[in-house]
């Protein structure tokens, strides 16, 4: 049983319908809203599996179903759905992880008064993300993209009565909007150049050879290929959505939303969208690779941004104290990895890491949610501690996630995907800086994850909340267990020994690497991981924290550095000092202009109009009205006379009708006789 590509729209449509149901459900209808959302997503999951099966029949093919949306001048504007292994895998991942997160939310949001609204937004979020995934048109993708932005705004600001949440929502919305501006410009430029926004259209799509050749052959004034410029503009959008440096600032703040939302944003939907976008337009991004005489390749920028982000995220994460913020910065870092992979030319590795990351990051966030739920909404790891024995399931699954994220060798999926990326970075001819950045990030990742686990689960409770923690209900732990299992198993679809996923994505047959190819790098990274974990254990687990106010060991050694990192490298402040200042100065100038210059002109014109009005009124009342009044009076008199015949007696009307009929017939017949 296969899913024809014509029905692919059903995948996003089901959660969209669920969102509609949720919106129409009154507050009391909790089971209806949640049931609709979960059922719809499960339905989408099943459809996605069918779609995947369809796509894997011929992995190299791009199945499309295009239709015309409207006629524009002489041309037709077309939209469509696309099915290939890339988005089929994405669909399965999004719906599967999403379903588990939805189920988890049942327990996590149980006490919330706006339960139905929450599920409505969640469904909308999932629908928008699935829309991005199945779109075969950059425009359709962009529409869904913006819907994702809207849904993220609604969800991050779900507890809008908290000022931080409201601010975080605004921040996320505006920051990503900056990137979206680039995407919009790139899209318009692309349409201008190629005349289509369809990705694949039997050779006429913008990602197919004909269009790409045109794009890469044209150059701008500085010798930059057009495809490079467009690719970079589109990449702007990905930077915003995926929280890449320098637009990553919204991502940690987005932790103000409910934890399932964080999980959804970080694992399955929003941030993955950026990576997916770059992977989707990869032919466009890499179109300039063949050119040698250009000043800049688009992918070089991608790799640079990715490497910076990966390193920066990992460094900052070391000094965070909020459990969710640590995870947030780890997401930033991991997304940097993916971008790095894209940049160094291995989009397959990026997608592999995206998939594995989705599972273990969802697992980690849900685990964190479980911890927070258990500890009565205490998120500060200094206040927690000693939760291991109390939250056995959560601890076990969280540990799996942590090991996967840290890239613990062989058993865990994170190891394989990360290894694929490092392997790709090693093979990049341009520079080895990304590889070095990646390797440093490996150490740091292992270190800060060990720190997080030690602080949270080892030692003893350092606050009332952590001492009285209790295990979460099954509706929350079961998804954790499923995700943990997946976090382990999903890695084995893409090991060097059997790179099934890679082959399915690229459409080439499975050809195992030689076992020793890249073994040296693997050994190095294993050592680095071991070092990171060992360091973490040595610093944090050997002597656990006793009180909440005790200083962090690193903080004790290098207080200023720790504070700098803890304040996220003061990037927010930097933005406030530069962009914000300029912005507010501009605002002051605009205000002055508005208030004095434009307002003066407008007021003058208004006065002028007022004077003219007075003149007109006089003329009207004296001159024109007299004439009309007389005319109206005459009409009214005539009307009075005529209205006498309107007796209100239905009989009279009926009689007149009948007489009229007789007369009419007589006139016609007599006239006809003559």
């Amino acid at each position, binding site marked *: 049983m296969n899913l024809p590509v014509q029905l692919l729209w059903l995948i996003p449509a089901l959660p969209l319908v669920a969102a509609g149901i949720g919106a129409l459900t009154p507050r009391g209808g909790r089971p209806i809203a949640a049931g609709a959302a979960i059922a719809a997503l499960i339905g989408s999951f099943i459809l996605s599996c069918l779609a995947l099966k369809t796509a894997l029949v011929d992995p190299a093919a791009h199945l499309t179903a295009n239709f015309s949306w409207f006629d524009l001048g002489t041309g037709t504007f077309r939209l469509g759905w696309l099915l290939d292994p890339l988005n089929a895998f994405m669909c399965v991942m999004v719906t599967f992880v999403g379903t588990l997160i939805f189920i988890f939310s049942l327990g996590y949001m149980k006490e919330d008064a706006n339960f139905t609204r929450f599920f409505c937004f969640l469904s909308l979020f999932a629908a928008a993300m699935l829309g991005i995934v199945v779109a075969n048109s950059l425009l359709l993708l962009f529409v869904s993209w913006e819907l994702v932005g809207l849904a993220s705004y609604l969800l991050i600001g779900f507890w809008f009565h908290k000022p931080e949440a409201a601010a975080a929502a605004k921040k996320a919305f505006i920051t990503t909007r900056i990137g979206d501006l680039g995407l919009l410009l790139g899209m318009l430029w692309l349409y201008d150049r190629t005349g289509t926004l369809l990705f694949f259209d039997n050779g006429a799509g913008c990602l197919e050879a004909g269009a790409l050749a045109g794009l890469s052959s044209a150059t701008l004034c500085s010798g930059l290929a057009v495809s490079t410029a467009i690719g970079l503009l589109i990449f702007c959008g990905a930077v915003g959505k995926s929280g890449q440096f320098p637009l990553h600032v919204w991502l940690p703040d987005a932790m103000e939303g409910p934890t399932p939302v964080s999980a959804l944003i970080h694992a399955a939907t929003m941030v993955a969208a950026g990576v997916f976008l770059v992977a989707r337009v990869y032919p466009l991004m890499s179109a300039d690779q063949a050119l040698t005489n250009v000043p800049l390749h688009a992918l070089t920028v991608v790799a640079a941004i990715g490497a910076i982000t990966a390193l920066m995220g990992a460094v900052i994460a070391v000094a965070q104290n909020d459990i969710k913020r640590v995870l947030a910065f780890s997401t930033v870092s991991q997304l940097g990895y993916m971008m790095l992979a894209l940049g160094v030319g291995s989009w397959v590795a990026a997608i592999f890491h995206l998939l594995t990351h989705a599972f273990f990051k969802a697992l980690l966030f849900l685990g964190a949610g479980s911890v927070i739920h258990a500890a009565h909404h205490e998120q500060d790891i200094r206040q927690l501690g000693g939760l291991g024995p109390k939250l056995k399931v959560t601890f076990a699954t969280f540990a799996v996630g942590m090991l996967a994220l840290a890239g613990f060798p062989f058993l865990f999926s994170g190891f394989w995907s990360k290894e694929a990326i490092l392997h790709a970075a090693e093979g990049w001819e341009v520079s080895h800086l990304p590889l070095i950045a990646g390797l440093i990030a490996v150490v740091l990742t292992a270190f800060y994850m060990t720190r997080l686990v030690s602080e949270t689960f080892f030692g003893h409770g350092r606050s009332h909340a952590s001492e009285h923690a209790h295990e979460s209900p099954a509706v929350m732990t079961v998804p954790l267990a499923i995700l943990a299992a997946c976090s382990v198993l999903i890695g084995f679809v893409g090991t060097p020994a059997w790179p099934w996923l890679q082959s399915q994505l690229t459409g080439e047959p499975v050809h195992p690497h030689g076992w020793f190819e890249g073994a040296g790098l693997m050994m190095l990274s294993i050592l680095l991981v071991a070092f990171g974990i060992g360091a973490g254990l040595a610093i944090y687990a050997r002597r656990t924290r006793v009180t909440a106010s005790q200083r962090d060991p690193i903080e004790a050694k290098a207080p200023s550095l720790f504070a700098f990192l803890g304040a996220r490298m003061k990037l927010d402040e930097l933005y406030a000092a530069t962009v914000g200042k300029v912005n507010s100065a501009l605002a002051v100038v605009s205000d002055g202009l508005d208030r004095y210059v434009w307002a003066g002109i407008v007021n003058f014109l208004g006065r002028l109009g007022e004077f003219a009005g007075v003149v007109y009124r006089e003329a009207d009342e004296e001159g024109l009205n007299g004439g009309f009044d007389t005319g109206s009076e005459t009409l009214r008199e005539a009307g009075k006379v005529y209205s006498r015949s309107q007796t209100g007696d239905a*009989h009279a009307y009926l009689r007149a009708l*009948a007489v009229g009929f007789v007369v009419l*017939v007589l006139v016609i017949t007599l006239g006809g006789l003559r």
Partner: protein
Amino acid sequence: MNLILVLIGGLMLTAAAVAMSLRNIIHSALLLIGSWLGVSFFYLWAGAEFVAFAQVLVYVGAVSMVVLFAVLLTRRDRQDVVVAPETRTRAISALLVGGSVAGLLVSAVLGTPLATGPAETPTLTVKDLGTLLAGPQAAGLLIAGVILTVALLGAVVLAATDSGKEDAS
């Protein structure tokens, strides 16, 4: 053949005429039911069995019920069903107008050479009708259904009393 038609027509016309001149409105309504039955006999005579039964079902079964209900709901006491005699002028004018229309119509009917078809009754089974209604004439059927629904809703809205707003009288 024509004798039966004349009998049916005479019955129907007499009933209608008497109904329209009686002062007791209940009697009028009952006689009109007789007249409608006469119309349905005409349909039976003409071979339109289905229409005849539909006529009985709708007019005798439904319209007459509604009429009787309306009569009973719009009277304050029993004597109200006997209405005052009409004014002479109106009666005369109505007769004049009606007579002229009748003269016109009858003369037109008699003066027009009408094409007539075969004398035997055309066969039209209910199944044929159903096929026609569900096939080529489905739009008409749907529209009739919509009209009936709208009329039902309209009648309910018009006739329903707002128990809160209804005045004491």
